[in-house]
């Protein structure tokens, strides 16, 4: 575990050294949210109707945008090969990579999302549910995105392929995530949706690293 902590510190240090890169998903989130009023018309009540779905889909897309690069930089300079040769179990080390990715993207998205919720005129009672569902949901998205990243890291033109591979796996998270926010807006209890998201998170934490470890070994060997 102590090796995981060191890996996590390394990844966060790398992310901090390039602060602009942390800003990319947030800027992407802001811009896409700004697109929707232009497309759907400025009237507040139509926007309020679409707000939960729009916010969640934008968060999902910005997560997808960044998940491709999780292993790529280490693959290019050879550190990934060293990681595979480390005596520590690979699927724990991979969790450190995904944890760092989540901290630099998912967490920040959740923290910033109330601002965009207000821009889209989301009723105030929905904001707490939005932040909670985003916190749990983006963790699941990062884990599943990691699988796609591990499988396509060795490919020269893997960028577009990763979205085809993992978007179908993102859909259940989107369904329950936006449903949670819609329930909060409608005054219904949010707990069951968050519970299901939590269950997905547990499943993802248990199974995704195994697939990632296998994917990395295959990509390195190709």
């Amino acid at each position, binding site marked *: 575990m102590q090796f995981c902590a060191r890996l996590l510190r390394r990844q966060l240090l790398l992310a901090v050294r390039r602060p602009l890169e942390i800003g990319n998903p947030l800027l992407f989130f802001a811009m896409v949210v700004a697109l929707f009023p232009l497309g759907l018309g400025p009237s507040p009540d139509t926007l309020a109707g679409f707000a939960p779905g729009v916010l969640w889909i934008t968060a999902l897309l910005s997560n997808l945008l960044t998940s491709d690069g999780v292993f790529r930089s280490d693959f290019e300079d050879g550190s990934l090969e060293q990681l595979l040769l480390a005596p520590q179990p690979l699927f724990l080390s991979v969790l450190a990579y995904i944890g760092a990715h989540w901290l630099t993207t998912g967490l920040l998205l959740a923290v910033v999302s109330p601002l965009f919720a207000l821009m889209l005129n989301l009723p105030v009672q929905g904001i707490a549910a939005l932040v909670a569902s985003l916190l749990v949901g983006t963790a699941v998205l990062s884990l599943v995105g990691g699988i796609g990243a591990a499988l396509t890291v060795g490919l020269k033109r893997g960028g577009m392929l990763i979205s085809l591979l993992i978007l179908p796996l993102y859909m259940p998270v989107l369904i329950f995530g936006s449903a949670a926010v819609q329930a909060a807006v409608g005054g219904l209890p949010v707990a069951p949706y968050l519970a299901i998201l939590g269950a*997905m998170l547990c499943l993802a934490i248990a199974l995704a690293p195994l697939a990632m470890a296998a994917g990395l070994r295959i990509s390195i060997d*190709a």
Partner: protein
Amino acid sequence: MWPIFHKFGSPPWLYAISGAILRWLLPITLLALVTGMVWGLLFTPSENVQGNSYRIIYIHVPAAVVALAGYYVMAFAGAISLIWRMKMADVAMKAAAPVGAALTFVALFTGAVWGKPTWGTWWVWDARITSMLILLFLYLGVVALYEAFDNKEAAGKACAVLSLVGMVNIPIIYKSVDWWYSLHQGASIKFTGETSIHSSMLYPLLLMIAAFYALFTCCLLLNMRAELLQREQRTQWVRKLINEDVVN
């Protein structure tokens, strides 16, 4: 390890046995398909509610059922190739993917065409049709990933991992789409009331489902034979095979 399991792994034996199976399975499949279609199209009474458009059930439901089963076959073959490192399972997985994708497309197209007369719109976001669409994306994901790798050995392993991940996710996707459909649709109108189907309509449906399963097996074996030749082209048994072909 059981001897039969390993014998199944040797390419020439598999090539010969698949040829033998196909020789009698292919005609049976074609016969079953033709009789099922003619029976369903022309000889069953029309349904009181939907009139004759329900006849599409005879190709929509079997295609959907076999497409889903095909994904599990592919994932299972992938698991075998990953765990026991058997090349033949890898070939079976590679062969199953395009056939499954084609059947999913058939299920989707017939579902959409069926929606027009009964629902008035070409595309209905019905729970099962949407899950079928996601299944098609999963299939295309596997096929695209296989093509993206240059080294075919690694491609097979990567697709095995992806199909296993997909297999774990299919029940989640189906349940969440069903749940999503019931949330927004209020009372969920059953698209095709399978259980309440009249016996005279049920028999052709069962025949068609069996015919589609047989069709899937035939296509799988045919694809495997073609794939086997390509992968084993430098071996002796392929050369011997060619010489026999050249001679006769």
